[in-house]
């Protein structure tokens, strides 16, 4: 992936501009086209994220193009994809509004069900949500276009520790505390 810098409007900090931030802090151009619900779209060679219903229909009809990923809306049941993890190059979860938190559980469940491919947060993805999105299992993010890119990158490292287990580290702090205490006391 190429590390790019979108030219910023003069005098302003560089913004996310639709690019993709990875959990490792690198940025790349977004090569995926998102088909929204109700939007007519023909299968092309462009990598495309389809709404769940359309993706399932095409799968049933055997008309899924090679580069077909799927995106889940807040109310979609992630279990619908359980049998298809191997054939999915990318799964995205959409956040129509940043305060609708269903997508966090969607991500947790996809990971629990065994999806190990790339999981991407799209929609109203804001700087102050990125740390938690990473924790529940997202490994790439398309921040809203206006978001400050440097701040978004920094947000990945916002907290140095976490109390509870989550997808990124299922071992809660209390187990790690106990382990370090045992090491310290040599018991």
């Amino acid at each position: 992936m190429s590390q790019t810098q979108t030219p910023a409007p003069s005098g302003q900090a560089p913004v996310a501009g639709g690019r993709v931030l990875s959990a490792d802090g690198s940025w790349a151009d977004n090569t995926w086209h998102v088909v929204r619900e109700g939007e007519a779209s023909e299968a092309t060679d462009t990598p495309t994220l389809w709404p769940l219903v359309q993706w399932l229909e095409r799968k049933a009809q055997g008309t899924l193009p090679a580069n077909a990923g799927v995106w889940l809306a807040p109310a979609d049941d992630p279990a619908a994809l359980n049998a298809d993890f191997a054939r999915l190059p990318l799964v995205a979860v959409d956040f129509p509004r940043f305060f609708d938190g269903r997508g966090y559980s969607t991500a947790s469940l996809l990971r629990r069900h065994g999806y190990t491919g790339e999981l991407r947060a799209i929609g109203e993805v804001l700087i102050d949500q990125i740390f938690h999105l990473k924790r529940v299992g997202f490994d790439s993010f398309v921040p809203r276009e206006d978001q400050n890119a440097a701040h978004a990158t920094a947000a990945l490292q916002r907290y140095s520790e976490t109390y509870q287990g989550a997808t990124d580290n299922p071992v809660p702090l209390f187990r790690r505390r106990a382990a370090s205490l045992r090491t310290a006391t040599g018991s």
Partner: protein
Amino acid sequence: MYRYDTIDRQLVNERVAEYRDQLQRFLAGELSEEEFMHLRLRNGLYRQRHAPMLRIAIPYGLLSSTQLRRLAHIARRYDRGYGHFTTRQNIQFNWIKLEETADILAELAEVEMHAIQTSGNCVRNITSDEFAGIAPDELVDPRPLAEILRQWSTFHPEFNWLPRKFKIAINGAKEDRAAVAFHDIGLHVLRGPDGQLGFRVLAGGGMGRTPAIGAVIREWLPWQHVLTYVESILRVYNRYGRRDNKFKARIKILVKALGAQEFARQVEEDFAQIIDGPSTLTQEEFDRVSAFFVPPPYDPQAPEVDPETVGDKAFARWAQRSVRAHKTPGYRSVVLSLKPTGIAPGDATAEQMDAVAEFSERFGFGQLRVTHEQNLVLPDVRCDQLHALWQAARQVGLATPNIGLLTDLIACPGGDFCALANAKSLPIAHSIQARFDDLDYQHDIGELDINISGCINSCGHHHVGHIGILGVDKDGEEWYQVSLGGADGSGAADGRNAIGKVIGPSFTATEMPDVMGRLLETYVRERIEGERFIDTVLRIGIAPFKDHVYQGSIHAHERAPDRVNDTRAATPKRQEVMT
């Protein structure tokens, strides 16, 4: 009490840095009002009628003298010299400057305090019994489990954007002093037949527009599974709780819609996937946290004295109301009243906070408690020092002998401060306190919970008042609806609870003292020996009270049935609910 280690300290400091950055971005125009609103609420900051309000967590009601002195300092340095203790074991400062909020949070972090998740649609401050660890009727000390839940819920990545706020309460005594049945999740800590620790789990309780008593969704949950089981409850709620209407977004609506049984089934289904996973609590962690809650070094020689036999009548009267039994012989706990007539219930000045901090050291081990009745508790006072404490407390106005009585009423800040309120609550509280200020009368009336809320969000917990008062807006005027027979589970050995029943059309503010007078007259007329107000209501029903109240002169004018006007709560700018 729990003390932070380097990691706890670091996390709270990182939170302050995060908030400072968010505040700066907001002031620089990089965050919209709406975006910043959600972030500041998660740090306890509301916009109020006059000035921003900051709500600070007092986790499960425990405070050290150092922390209370810091709150006094904040009151002086950043507010107008006082603070307001709330019904959810928080303290609120009502006259804060937005620009100074990050500095206040930094000052709090220095004494291991914070305002994390005291508002917003996330898991709120965990509340518990203010007499935890000292009450004779305690089965299990809930504090270690409350602390473990506090850490688990802090910055939970999956449950930070719930459909609505989420409140967890935990109780370990026979009497329910944490009102667990009125919480989104209520936990009763118990010991099983084999001495094993576990929980009875309730879900879907709450007050507000649709009051509901929580349903038992699991009779017995072994303690090791509390974090994973609570996680499953929250996951079901996060996925399926309503988000289309904020008035139907609490978990109680989901539990009601699905039925408690079906809700429990869905929780169990998720729980089965994560049971015995890494989030299962360990004995090691339970022991580590429990070690912070061992009893202080009590003096085994402390004499056991009946406080009511010492000193004069005034002292005896105070002791009768304020002094509570203690697990340890020779000791008592003492409730300091924040309800003198004429002061907003729960308000304390910086000087009073400093004084209480000093009392907690002179008459105890430097700790105190905050109650959901908006009073303060000194937990470990020697019997032979009660008289000295009383004299000291009197000098700073903290010895009103009204604990549990008529004038020890609970009220939200109401229309004087809150942007949401339909009506003022403080003037109603004051007019009732002023009318019934006579102590002999109050002691004759005996135990009585009066709860006043300025709107249906019920921060004053009117649904569970023996007498509940709700401010309503009718065609732009402030009216007050009265209900009878509520109970939050405290004051009853069996923890019985109930939602009060509305007695009829509402009243004007000026009518309220007379309405109260008539309710009390009915009680005095009907009571049998030794019966409390609530017991009389339960025995004879609300009809005799209603008849007496609505008979004759209070209602000089014809009144239409209530049409409660909700337009204020529905106006976008007023969406910051106070609970």
